[in-house]
């Protein structure tokens, strides 16, 4: 449990704080920037938690802020750090952006939220949708006379803590997005070192009352009963025709986990609006959907030639949109010249890279770019080193396509009391994850 939570600016100056337990001196925060600096001097790898004079400092960074929790006990570290992330999430959902400025502007409501999010160091309600029902933004709008006091929504403490009762929509709709993000690491020789598909089923619900939902996935994705014994969930088929190992499915707290464990049924009462219903991970080696090959030639140390080829390795009927390939170049390079068979190329000297963008890349097509940059006469060894180590990064998205072959068969919606007709919609998309990279030689 956290004793106190602080918002600090980049210099470590407290912007706002909440003392939950009163069992540590609040002045301990003054030591934080000093300790952090000392740790940085001592080691390259400063961990997100450390202990000093009996006080433990746990922190995360967000934009230009530190969020810091202090505790003097042997507390649950993952819970505290996760709670700090949750605070960021809630406040971001309240103010759009969480940074120094928005903290100064909204201190009243932040205090109010902090009071509700945690009590005496125990995290309480961290669901923004529910919080918004009784901690409202219109605080600064002052009106004369007493306002109607708000009541705590029953949902705060209900077993269904993520949905309020009595919601009404004229048209009852539910949207499902199946999003698969690909993380890939390719060596400079073209070998796939690591590949990972992170799948996520995102939902947007606009449904009245307390609907019961049941999600059915295609037969190919067999949530094998074997997984009871810990074996990976196998799905036959998929676009590649090979069987795909689906590992470790995770569900939103609304899904009845014990029901899933027993008969593999995904049943739940959804929260209102947008949320992530489930996520999963595939751990098979996937063929890189977009293949990038890069050759660098240095001519007598005065200019550098980079030839990049990109190939779409998926079926012709699909198309990748907004393809962006970032190729690192030496920091001290100048006067770039480009030739490309498609798309736009530009030089970003501030990031020391060239960016090649293709609005669309059809399946099976390939394009290339030839770039030439000048190098200064004086050779900077260090700049050369750092260029060599930065990887090529690729971004893209491919609509109507999933790597795993997962398909939604049905989404049954029943509201026992209201019995309205409802409309489920499903979309599929595959995109590059945060880490789709190709190492340079």
């Amino acid at each position, binding site marked *: 449990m956290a004793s106190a939570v602080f918002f600090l600016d980049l210099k470590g100056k407290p912007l706002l704080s909440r003392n939950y337990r009163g069992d540590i001196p609040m002045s301990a925060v003054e030591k934080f920037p000093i300790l952090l600096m000392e740790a940085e001097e001592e080691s390259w790898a400063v961990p997100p938690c450390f202990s000093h004079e009996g006080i433990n400092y746990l922190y995360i960074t967000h934009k230009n802020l530190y969020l810091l929790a202090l505790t003097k006990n042997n507390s649950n570290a993952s819970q505290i750090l996760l709670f700090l*992330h949750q605070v960021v999430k809630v406040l971001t959902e309240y103010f759009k952006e969480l940074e120094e400025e928005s903290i100064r502007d909204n201190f*009243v409501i932040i205090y109010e939220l902090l009071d509700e999010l945690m009590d005496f160091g125990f995290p309480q309600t961290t669901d923004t949708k529910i919080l918004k029902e009784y901690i409202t933004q219109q605080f600064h709008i002052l009106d004369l006379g007493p306002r109607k006091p708000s009541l*705590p929504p029953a949902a705060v403490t209900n077993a269904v803590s993520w949905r309020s009762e009595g919601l009404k929509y004229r048209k009852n709709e539910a949207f499902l997005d199946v999003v698969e993000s690909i993380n890939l690491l390719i060596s400079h020789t073209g070998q796939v070192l690591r590949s990972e598909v992170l799948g996520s089923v995102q939902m947007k619900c606009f449904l009245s009352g307390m609907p019961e939902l049941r999600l059915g996935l295609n037969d190919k994705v067999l949530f094998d009963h074997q997984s009871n014994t810990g074996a990976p969930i196998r799905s036959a088929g998929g676009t590649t025709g090979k069987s795909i190992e689906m590992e470790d499915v995770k569900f939103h707290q609304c899904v009845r986990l014990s029901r899933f*464990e027993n008969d593999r049924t995904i049943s739940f009462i959804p929260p209102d609006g947008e949320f992530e219903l489930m996520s999963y991970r595939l751990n098979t080696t996937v063929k890189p959907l977009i293949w990038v090959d890069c050759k660098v030639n240095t001519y007598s140390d005065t200019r550098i030639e980079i030839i990049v080829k990109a190939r779409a390795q998926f079926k012709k009927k699909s198309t990748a949109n907004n393809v962006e390939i970032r190729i690192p170049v030496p920091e001290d390079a100048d006067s770039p010249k480009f030739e490309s068979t498609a798309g736009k190329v530009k030089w970003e000297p501030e990031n020391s890279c060239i960016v090649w963008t293709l609005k669309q890349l059809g399946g099976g097509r390939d394009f290339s770019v030839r770039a030439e940059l000048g190098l200064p006469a004086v050779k900077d060894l260090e700049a050369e080193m750092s260029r060599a180590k930065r990887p090529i990064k690729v971004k893209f998205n491919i609509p109507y396509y999933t790597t795993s072959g997962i398909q939604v068969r049905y989404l049954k919606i029943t509201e026992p009391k209201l019995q309205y007709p409802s409309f489920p919609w499903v979309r599929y998309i595959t995109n590059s994850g945060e880490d789709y990279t190709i190492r340079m030689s």
Partner: protein
Amino acid sequence: MSMSQQIERRIRKAFQTPKKGETFELRNGLVSQYARERKDAIQRTIQAMTVGKDVSALFPDILKNIATPDIEQKKLVYLYLMNYAKSHPELCILAVNTFVQDASDPNPLVRALAIRTMGCIRVDKMVDYMEIPLRLTLKDENPYVRKTAAICVTKLFDLNPQLCIEEGFLESLQTLIEDSNPMVVANAVSALAEIQDRAPEIKCFVVDPHILSKLLVALNECTEWGRIAILTSLSDYKASDIKDAEHICERVVPQLQHANPSVVLAAIKAVIAHVEIQNSEAKANLLRKLGPPLVTLVSSAPEVQYVALRNIRIILQKYPQILNRELRVFFCKYNDPPYLKMEKLEIMVRIANEKNIDQLLSELKEYSMEVDLDFVRRAIRAIGQCAIKIESAVEKCVNVLMDLIYNKVNYVLQEVVIVMKDVLRKYKTFESCLPVLCQNIDELDESEARAALVWIVGEYADKIDNSGEILQGFVSIFNEEATQVQLQLITAVVKLYIKKPEAGQNMIQGVLQTGTKSDNADVRDRGYIYWRLLSSDTVIAKDIVLAEKPPIVSTIEDLPKSLLNELIGELSTLASVYHRPAATFMGHGKFGADAVQKRAIEEQKQLANEDEVGAGVNAENLLDVDFSVDSPTVDSPASNPVTASKGGSALDELNDLFAPVQIPKITGNASSNQDIMNMFKNTAPTSSVSHNLSSTKDAFAELNFDNSFSSHANSGVPSKSSKTNEDLLGLF
């Protein structure tokens, strides 16, 4: 800015007569006849408080605004009260009435707010008034109020355990475990677990089969945070038999699929706690189920991931097979924060085996060509660790290491030499590497690398043609070398002398002579030992010096068995992140839990003192409360820091034994304390002020020593510190 300067500035500020300026304006606003202006002034006061301005002088005026139907205004006033209650303990009593009233307000939000805030006003006098509202709210019809009251019991226990026990609040809390509402159950569990942790002797939270079934039911229904609390108490529960353990695991396993990584980690902990008792088949089954969730933890937020990785290391030592197939997951991403990269390397060498070594080696080779120095060195060390761990892969590892040498990067070279020392110690078949290693002696400037090379030359003296020459080079600058190099050098020369007497002859005398004259006792001792050994019997000397060394099994650092067993039960806590038993960082004596709390109280007290000075100026505002306390003003201020430092120094040695805690600063604090005290001496002669002063102090004194109840946690140490307490008490 030094502490004392800061304090001085604050005090100066308090002395200014607030006839104009912000405080004056705020006060006017707070007593305005218009509700809107009052609310606005409250907001601005809170804002000033947020940016660190001291607005405690407005306490009485804020207090006047407490009785309001506007719940948002009420929240702000309560927030202010919580912050400054310590500096105006006697004024807090004036708020009691409102609190008690609010605790039976028709609006459950207000009831909950009142009971929540009351518990946070950590003033002793408040405790007496908490009883009735707390009793009421614990039985409230609204679950939101009940769940808040449940936590308030912990707050009360923290302030006054005796009262809490005598009034039967713990029993009320226990009945809440059977509450119909899962959130109430979760908070009751959290509250009880904490009290149990602080005072195990009262046994307020003993999970029996009945409570167990309640917990298992609530587990499926409550929020993510509640689940963590319940899962944690499940892992502390000792299963009575195999069936019991099986049942718990059955109910816990579905939680591995929860989206919240902290819930997953808590579930893993609970499963591990109940896995040992089960038969081997069930155990293997359960452990296999832990693999995928552990892997998924590696894709959570970096800080959470760090906790997970540190925990995975513990789990891996206990169950080495658990992540056998998952090497790739731990490959470092380019953007990973450094602390994750280092941790991932640690895990990769631990799951390295004959099957995945090729993959790992090509990855490690990639890392060793990166730019971050620490990371590169760690990666090279990892290659060495693999070479020692996996005998069949040693040749590949050595090839990679030798390739790295050709890059001629200084720090790479040094690290390779250090790593090769271990390799050459375990495997005798890499003599071909020796010339390459010896070629680059001039490049080595770190003592660890130099020591490693000297060891290699000594050990392979007969295989290296110019071993005598090399060592001669080191010997000639013997006194400039670091101790570890000197130690190795003595040994190496002795080995050379025994293996190649003709080469070592002219050096041995000199080295032993210089060594035995060294200022360093270790170097001296080693010199003497060899000297005597060589002068007694050369055959025996040879047997001893060239004895077969026990082979190195692993250079991967393991946790000691006892620590491992402790940490496996501490998963996801700070102890499991630090890889240290909780007792070492919870602090002792000066930095112990109680002492830290005392410091917190001291800090408030200090604030109170400053305020009193300010309050003296606007004493007419202080309402007509009669503080008829007879005790005189604080008499010998200087002795306060003296006693404190006495108690501290006695414990310093203890502290040094444990965690690497630094002890400075405190002296600075003490002296600044003294400064304040001196200032009081000079500036607070009026009787009214001194009365106030002593009454506040009394309030603190009471509070202070109720805490000694919980001092059981640190054995031995508290007796000393509580003695200091008594000394202090005597002063008042």
